[in-house]
């Protein structure tokens, strides 16, 4: 048994026939080879799989691909434009907000969502806003700095 879904991923329309139990993250990684979205747990706790669905951050391991039918999905692969890092990505690099890089795509997607809702977050707001994303390497110190620096750059339209 399979279901047919049509959705927009990174600006391109995709139609596919999938096993109904296929998770959105499995669809992105295995069917579309968008391997920038990672899987770090099986309980929706780590946030490594965070993508944007219709403009909001979601954990793509906690929803079925079928549930994304008709939706618009953005993954980390579409954040940089023409080889130029997005200001949030540039801030992560400048602040050394990543080490092993595994949580990074989810962290950037969560940070963009956070800043969309609160363009000028203080440290507390950033720490609370990233509560759903685990990083085992950085101790969060530089991630917090990066999100604030990225937010400032986005405010300037950088």
């Amino acid at each position: 048994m399979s279901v047919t879904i049509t959705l927009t991923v990174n600006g391109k329309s995709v139609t596919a026939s999938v096993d109904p139990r296929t998770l959105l993250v499995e669809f992105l990684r295995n069917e579309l080879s968008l391997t920038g979205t990672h899987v770090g747990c099986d309980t929706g706790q780590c946030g490594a799989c965070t993508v944007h669905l219709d403009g909001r951050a979601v954990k793509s391991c906690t929803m079925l691909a079928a549930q994304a039918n008709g939706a618009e999905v953005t993954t980390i692969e579409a954040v940089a434009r023409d080889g130029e890092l997005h200001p949030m990505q540039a801030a992560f690099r400048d602040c050394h907000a990543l080490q092993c890089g595994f949580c990074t795509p989810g962290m950037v997607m969560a940070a963009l969502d956070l800043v969309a809702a609160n363009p000028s977050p203080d440290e507390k707001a950033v720490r609370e806003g990233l509560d759903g994303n685990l990083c085992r390497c950085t101790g969060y110190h530089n991630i917090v700095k990066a999100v604030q620096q990225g937010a400032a750059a986005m405010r300037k339209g950088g």
Partner: protein
Amino acid sequence: MGASDTNVMGKSVRRKEDYRFLTGAGQYTDDVNPDRHTHAYFLRSPHAHARIRGIDTSRAKAAPGVVAVCTSADLEGVNGLPCGWLITGTDGKPMNEPPHPVLAKGKVRHVGDPVAMVVAETPNQAKDASELIDVDYEVLPAVVNCVDALKRGAPQIHDEAPGNKCYTWALGDKAAVDAAFAKAAHVSKLDIVNNRLIPNAIEPRAAVASYDRAADGYTLYVASQNPHVERLLMTAFVLGLPEHKVRVIAPDVGGGFGSKIYLYAEETAMVWASKRVGRPIKWTAERSESFVSDAHGRDHVTRAELAMDKDGRFLAMRVHTTANMGAYLSTFASCIPTILYATLLAGQYTTPAIYCEVTAAFTNTVPVDAYRGAGRPEATYVVERLVHQAGVDMKLPQDEIRRRNFIRSFPHQTPVALTYDTGGYDACLDEAMRLADVKGFAARKAEAAKRGKLRGIGYSSYIEACGLAPSNIAGALGARAGLFEAGEVRVHPTGSVTVFTGSHSHGQGHETTFAQVVASRLGIPVENVDVVHGDTGRVPFGMGTYGSRSLAVGGTAIVKALDKIVAKGRKIAAHLLEAAESDIEFADGKFTVSGTDRSKTFGEVALTAYVPHNYPLDKLEPGLNETAFYDPTNFTFPAGTHVCEVEVDPDTGVVEVVAFSACDDFGNIVNPMIVEGQVHGGLTQGLGQALLENCVYDAESGQLLSGTYMDYAMPRADDVPSFNVGTKVTPCTHNPLGAKGCGEAGAIGAPAAMMNAVHDALAAVGVTYIDMPASPHRVWRAIQAARA
């Protein structure tokens, strides 16, 4: 700071690896998808301890999409997983070393012990089929606590380890220690539990194994910290394959923290099966699987005593520790609570006599091995909790009791086998106290009290032995391998460079730090240097990354290879410039005839080496490619002081870390930005241990109770503060970079600093002792008990 600069030592060059990670272009093992690959799923034991009466795989083999099912009965000729370190006990006998089968044989010994491997077309088909395997278990009583395991009548886990004992081992002069205790003015004592932890790199373990008929060789992609060690152990000790027929690639690896050092059962079974299946096999652990199959860390039970004279000067220390090995000996398990633990019990102090006795026990739990710091956090926790207690007992300020006992003359021979080459402990303590604004603490405490909160401040002056390790010393202590490192520097005809290192980066930023070392030594831009690691097919050899050894040992191997490159370049330049070799100086990327302006650039010399039209072919081979192996002469000794300030809510038991300051001495620093990042991450793991993390097994059933992120509390962004970090430098005296290593310091120093702060805060309400983690429930109960 631009990357095209060549004057890059000590500069915070932004990382070369970041672009790919930030754009989703990283290539982790689970991103590797060879054509026609199959998927493995491991059926694991649901019981902590059981006899296997029989396994029926027939229904699974007939299930849709199944390619193969194997159990231990199929693994003919496959040996058990080896332990790399032989510990000799106080009885003069080698440790008890029971077999560690790749798939459970006859018995299962912990929840998660792999029993069968199913290979199928899809992950779901493999998983579904595993449910059709009938395993007839006779459930046996289990024991999970290491002290209980050694008691008479405890369930016997291995026939080869009577009483569940692996070894009892000791270090130090017991008679001298007993004599010092007999004349001591005061003895401080503590009974300490170092809580069991689960490493939890965010990338789960993963592997892709394939066999190539044309080459008659195997390729294994695996999330590993040391691919050469993985290959050596797997081929020579377990599978009996020719080492040169197996290529192990550890591509981008999403964190390790020790848990990806070891040779594990899963990838071993997959390599074995890949030839039989005739197709690539892929496996990625689910997080629930990681919890019951990645090696755990810590898990010590210790009684520690410190003898002092009337002025609080340390006379002797006596430590008895029971360490949990888990169900089997993991790759380095045996050396963690011995060689990497007891040797660090001198800390930063002149304590003249130390005796430590360690008994290691088998239990029905996941194997325990190195986790960030590996033995040294456990030692630091014992020493620094005990020193805090001594300060309380002797009514001395916490900085004063430390200063009274600091080592100030180097080299310093400790009574526990190490020789510290250099250090400056007062400087780090002073700076950490300045960063922490200790002077303002009394006012902050008073202000908190007005709000009904308890403030406390705690210190931890840690030391670690890093740069593992001088092979001859390690060998004398039982290491079954050398612990050197290899580096190859390949200069290309146009003067750009590829460096091959046996160290492995899984977040540490070697591609940048090592490129800085090369760029500055050769006088070329950082962007002209690429660093290759994690591939036995490309890198000559390597012992990998752990024990904060990459720069001190791996970096030094590269420096030695660079020295050979420069020496050969000097000969080529002398020929081109028609000068004596002894007159050629090399600086800023140019070979110059001394005292003249006649010179050749590094690029010109490189081109000449590969296009030798005008070349001393009678004296010199063409080409510019050098390899070096470096074996350190001593350990390195990073050290520092961490100061933690906490606020406890006595009504709820919630502990908030309000400030954390660290001053560390890592020797010379190549990239301060990367070093600070390592400290932040280590501190958070240390605070995780002290504040949140706890691996809990049910004592009766042996089930892992903290088996998901909903039960095992990982530190999140809102659990920790921003950190104040600083450094002081005493360069390491025995490697050319003067580097000591920085990767583990945070995790080593932080737990004691935080718990000392918690004890300082809780002293006001009469609580005298609490174990990690200082969870709200535990703190609240301790306060209630003290008030009762």
